[in-house]
């Protein structure tokens, strides 16, 4: 579906090294790695937001619809939730159904900044779904949420993944527990410049524990 041939990404000093990978429909990838290593940079490169990464480096993106859940909600603050969803192509009825799906039934006329952080993030998730995405990009979807809200959102995303078997997902997180629930594939980004250290499928139960154990070991050695 999507092939990454990123040759490197420069901010004066290289941040992102070579990243080669393919993403297939139904892939649920959790992108792990130390903070500041360039996980968001890689996500932006995949989304086509990074001007220094040429379009040819992400083969197949042109045909894909992408839903991107940014760390901030990035809804238009001067438009209601309804209007924000309609702007990306949802009909009135679809907007209502999507808000209901993310637990914001009846909030359609609210402005984004009238919502709590958790609600605004769910509204932004509804916008991701409004484009009927082939690829869902999530940038730390559970960051700065309290454990209860984070748990609810995790269950919500897991449900969405179940009902969209063809959709691919890449989720940036620094919590291996998220990967356990959401992912069937694990990316670990590390090094200077950052490369994918591991690209492992999570198949049998128990394997993920082994993988996470390896990750923890790596973190401890601080390499």
């Amino acid at each position, binding site marked *: 579906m999507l092939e990454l041939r990123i040759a490197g990404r420069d901010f004066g000093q290289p941040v992102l090294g070579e990243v080669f990978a393919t993403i297939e429909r139904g892939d649920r990838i959790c992108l792990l790695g130390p903070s500041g290593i360039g996980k968001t940079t890689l996500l*932006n490169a995949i*989304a*086509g*937001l990074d001007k220094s990464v040429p379009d040819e480096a992400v083969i197949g993106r042109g045909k894909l619809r*992408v839903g*991107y859940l*940014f760390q*901030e909600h*990035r809804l*238009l*603050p*001067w*438009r209601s939730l309804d209007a924000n969803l309609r*702007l*990306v192509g949802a009909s009135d009825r679809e907007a209502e159904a999507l808000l209901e799906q993310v637990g914001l039934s009846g909030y359609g006329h*609210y*402005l984004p*900044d*009238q*919502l*709590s952080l958790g*609600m605004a993030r769910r509204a932004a998730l509804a*916008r991701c779904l409004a*484009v009927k995405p082939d690829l869902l990009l999530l940038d730390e979807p559970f960051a700065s949420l309290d454990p209860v809200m984070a748990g609810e959102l995790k269950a919500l995303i897991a449900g969405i993944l179940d009902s969209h078997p063809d959709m691919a997902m890449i989720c940036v997180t620094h919590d291996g527990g998220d990967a356990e629930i959401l992912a069937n594939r694990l990316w670990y980004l590390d090094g200077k410049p950052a490369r994918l250290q591991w690209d492992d499928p999570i198949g049998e139960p128990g394997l993920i524990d082994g993988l996470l154990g390896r990750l923890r070991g790596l973190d401890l050695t601080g390499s």
Partner: protein
Amino acid sequence: MKGRSGRPPLWSYWIVLPSFVVLWALTAWLLQSPLLPTPLSVLDTLIRESASGELWHHLGATLARVVVAFVLAMAIGTAIGIVMGRSQTTNALFDPLLVLLLNLPALVTIILMYVWFGLVEVAAVMAVVINKVPNVAVTVREGARSLDYRLEEMATVYEFTRWQRLRQVWVPQLFPYLMAATRGGLALIWKIVLVVELLGRSSGVGFQLHMAFQVFDVAAILAYSLAFIAVVQLIELAILQPLERRSSRWRQPEAAHA
């Protein structure tokens, strides 16, 4: 809102302005000179000019020039400002010209336009537009530079069309700058239009002031000035303030949802 920078309470206008009129009436009564007519004789002139239709004809001509010049100047200035704010190359190209135009006295533009194109309407309006465009461009450029890159990325990911990007993402962010340009713009354009009319047109408030000046008809000068001030205030109250209120509503959401 009751800070030192805010508007004074309404009653102060109802005390200060009538007091000023009384003072003016007293001075005029003491001097008994045709060069300072009493408020009553100015009012008399105003009514006479209005009844004859002269006032409306000239006020209308001035208003039409202001509207055309304003719309053109805002459209051109906004376009230039946005492009300059978004592209460093364009900025490098236009900025020296802006510095030149910003420091060019309005009178010079007016004279040059009349000399080059004759005493025609197009030259008059062009002179006003050329005077105003640099101010609009500089103001809007500031706004375009401060556009939120996070919303830009969002609009890119969600494949907003050019029109959607302009209308939904840029204009709301540029709105305070557009309002500032509008306010400053109207104030400037009103004044320049009068000079343009005084120098080369045969209609408009500026032309009437010119005629009154020729015969030292101070009552007519004051009568036209008052009518002029009234129209400007009307535009402020009926158009600008409601527009500003309407478009900044999203900034003060009712209590945030808990």
